[in-house]
Each structure stands twice: as structure tokens, then as C-alpha cells.
């Protein structure tokens, strides 16, 4: 399965050494040190949507093209809005390929600095290091909350806010993976975004979930009610939070019904 995909990829990007980073249901993510056209050093990420044999080839080509273009455009919109996300390097819409700059760092334990890994890593040291680590944990959550606040103030919704889809770099939070992202001004959609994150934190960090979710929301609130106060941030914040209550309630009912 993967060998066939790698062979297709080698036809699209020949002569480029690639390392597989992750294989999702829809896309394969790879990393490389090679920039396709500029003399730039660094690490670059290729997100590749291979053809899906279970779809009609013509429809498959259309879907791949529109999802690839959609995700790349969303990244560009984020950059223009000043929201931290990877810079776009190249797009091959027909090939299903997005070439972007890499964000994030490698933690001392060898893991990438996703919010998930960072919290895990910091938790391990928290017994010994105490308060210092507590404040690092809090800052990571607050910065992540703030970047989501910015996203929502621009009427953009991520659609898949898991703790792996935010990477910390030099203390700042970057969003990645816009395969399910969309544009919406509805408080409901933003509330669902926040709810998905809350559930994700609960599943990856159940012991401290309440604390982390509190910090995430505090970062979200401070940004919308602070930096965005003059452009209606407070009102949007309270609308979204009210919807979040509803969404949580619905979630609870659904889980009670099994």
C-alpha cells in the first residue's frame, strides 16, 4: 500500500530525499531538507494526497484538486491575517501536493513539540521542577488559546483542533492541518471547534484536562477581550462561550444515550 504511494510520489517529486512523518487516512506527510526552487536551508514538509482507488478516477481527481487547493489557500489566508501557521512553498493541485515550511521543534526527549507532546514532556518533569514547569504548561496552553482566538476573530474555523495539530516554536503556538478547515462567522461553528479541542485534551491528558482546558480558554478569552476588544471581541467571546455550553450539553446527552 505505502510502497505504491511512495512510487507515485517519486514520479511527482523525483530526486528528492523524503522521510515519512505520518500516514493519515487522506494524506501522507513527509519531510525533506530540499527547497524545490530557492537556495533556502531548513526543513520542509510535503503533504501528499494520493489517488484513492475506491473513488471514480475523474471524481477523485476533482476532490484531490479542490482539497489541496482549499488547504493551501487557507494557509495563505492565515498568514495574511497574521495567524501563525506554516508558510506555503509550492502547490501542485493536480498532483495533490502541498509543499510548506516546517514549524515546531524537537523536544529534549526526541518528540516533536506538538501541544500534546509538550504537555506530556513537561508533566514528566513537573514533580521535580515544580512551579517553573507549571508556568511553562500554562503559557503553552494560553498561547494556543490565543492563536485559536485570532483564528475565530477572522471567521475561520479549524475543524480538527486536536492537541497534535498545534506545534510550539520558540514559545509561540502554530496551527497545522487545515484539511477540514472552513470559513464561518457562526458562534456555533467556533464553539464546536473549542469543544473538539476540549475533548481532545481530555483524551490525551485526562488527569490534568480540567486545568489545561481552563488555561486554553483563558488564553482565548484574554485575546478576544483584550487585543480584539475594540472590534467586538467581547461580544463574540460571550456568544461563542454561550454556544459552547449548548454544545457541551448536547455532547453529554449524546454520550448518555450511548
Amino acid at each position: 500500500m505505502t510502497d505504491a504511494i511512495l512510487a507515485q510520489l517519486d514520479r511527482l517529486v523525483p530526486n528528492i530525499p523524503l522521510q515519512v512523518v505520518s500516514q493519515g487516512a487522506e494524506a501522507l506527510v513527509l519531510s525533506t531538507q530540499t527547497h524545490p526552487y530557492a537556495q533556502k536551508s531548513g526543513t520542509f514538509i510535503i503533504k501528499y494526497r494520493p489517488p484513492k482507488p475506491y473513488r471514480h478516477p475523474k471524481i477523485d481527481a476533482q476532490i484531490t484538486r479542490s482539497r489541496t487547493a482549499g488547504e493551501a489557500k487557507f494557509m495563505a489566508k492565515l498568514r495574511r491575517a497574521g495567524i501563525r501557521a506554516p508558510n506555503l512553498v509550492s502547490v501542485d493541485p493536480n498532483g495533490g501536493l502541498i509543499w510548506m515550511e516546517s514549524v515546531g521543534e524537537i523536544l529534549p526527549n526526541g518528540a516533536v513539540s506538538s501541544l500534546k507532546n509538550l504537555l506530556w514532556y513537561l508533566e514528566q518533569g513537573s514533580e521535580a521542577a515544580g512551579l517553573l514547569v507549571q508556568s511553562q504548561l500554562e503559557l503553552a496552553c494560553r498561547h494556543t488559546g490565543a492563536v485559536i482566538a485570532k483564528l475565530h476573530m477572522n471567521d475561520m474555523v479549524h475543524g480538527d483542533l486536536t492537541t497534535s495539530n498545534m506545534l510550539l516554536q520558540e514559545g509561540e503556538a502554530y496551527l497545522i492541518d487545515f484539511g477540514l478547515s472552513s470559513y464561518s462567522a457562526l458562534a456555533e461553528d467556533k464553539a464546536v471547534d473549542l469543544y473538539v479541542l476540549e475533548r481532545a485534551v481530555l483524551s490525551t491528558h485526562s488527569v490534568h484536562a480540567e486545568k489545561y482546558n481552563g488555561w486554553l480558554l483563558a488564553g482565548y478569552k484574554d485575546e478576544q477581550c483584550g487585543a480584539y476588544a475594540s472590534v467586538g471581541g467581547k461580544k463574540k467571546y460571550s456568544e461563542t462561550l454561550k454556544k459552547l455550553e449548548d454544545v457541551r450539553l448536547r455532547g453529554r446527552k449524546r454520550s448518555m444515550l450511548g
Partner: protein
Amino acid sequence: MGVQMSTFPQYPDVHVLLAYFPDVAKTKLASVKENLVSRNPEYDFCFLSTANLVSLQQLQNGVYTAVRNQKQEQMKASTIYTEIMLSLSPVNNINEALKRFGVDETRNDIIVLKVVQAEQLQESEKEFSAKLESILDSKPGALTDDVLYNGFDATKFKKLFKLLGVESQEELTQGAIEGALFRGL
């Protein structure tokens, strides 16, 4: 001296020759344009205006996209040189791309590119500079980021790429690259 050469890691067999002529008579540029319009085979080069080019990276992105499209047999234009101009343009119209990125005889500089196969490189390189110096009656100079940033037409550029209010070379470059990548999408 004068000819800059580059390749792309994906396509080592393709070489791009580039010469920049900073000081060309307007009459020479007008005559180049006429020869291109009448499809004179002696003018088989890509002549680019610097008006809407802010950095080398922006130019490299356009050339790369065109070469990739050619390799994948996905070109929209009939020649690689028109494909380069289209790949620089945010507007999905060949005439518009030629107008924005092709010869502009109101300016006094010009970039010339030739895309060649590795095996023709030796022969092409010599011929390339000799022929252009005679066509343009001018001497080439170095094309750098500073040359482009100091010389581009900021008003036209920002209007074309919808980048009003953007100032730094880095952000103008990223914006122009995105605009070109999203053409027709």
C-alpha cells in the same frame, strides 16, 4: 560573466540560463517585442520585464512551476516561455500574463531566460550571451534581490497581486508566490 545558471533539485536535467541587461535602449526593446510578435525563431528566449518582479525567489517559483508543468505534461501555454509568464501571474489569462511579465519597452532593463537540456548546456551558454548582446546591443549585469526590490514598480505590483499595505520584500515575495500558485484555483 553575465550569465547566471540554475537548476531545480527535482529536474537535474533541466538548466535555466539567465542574463540580466540593466541598461537597454527602448528602441531595442520595442524591436524585440516586434520580433516576438512575428515569431522570429531567432528570438527563442523568455524576455521578462522586471516591473512586477520583487525578488529572485518570486521568479524562481514561476520558472519552477512552468518546468514542473512541462515535465508533467500539464502546460496551459504552448511554449515553456509563455508558461513561465503564466506561472508568475495571478491572473488566469495568457494575454494578461504577457502584458504584465513580458517585454515592457517603457522600462530600460530586461531579464532573458533560456531553458535547456543538460547535454546542450555548453553550446547554448556561449550562443546565449553572444546572441543577446548583439540583439540588445548591451552588456549584461548581475541580477540580485536588491536590483529587483529597488527597481520593481511597487504600485503596479501591489495592485496586480492585491498586496496593498504590504512593504517588506519578504512579505511581498510570499504574497506574490501565493497569488501565482492560486491562479485559476
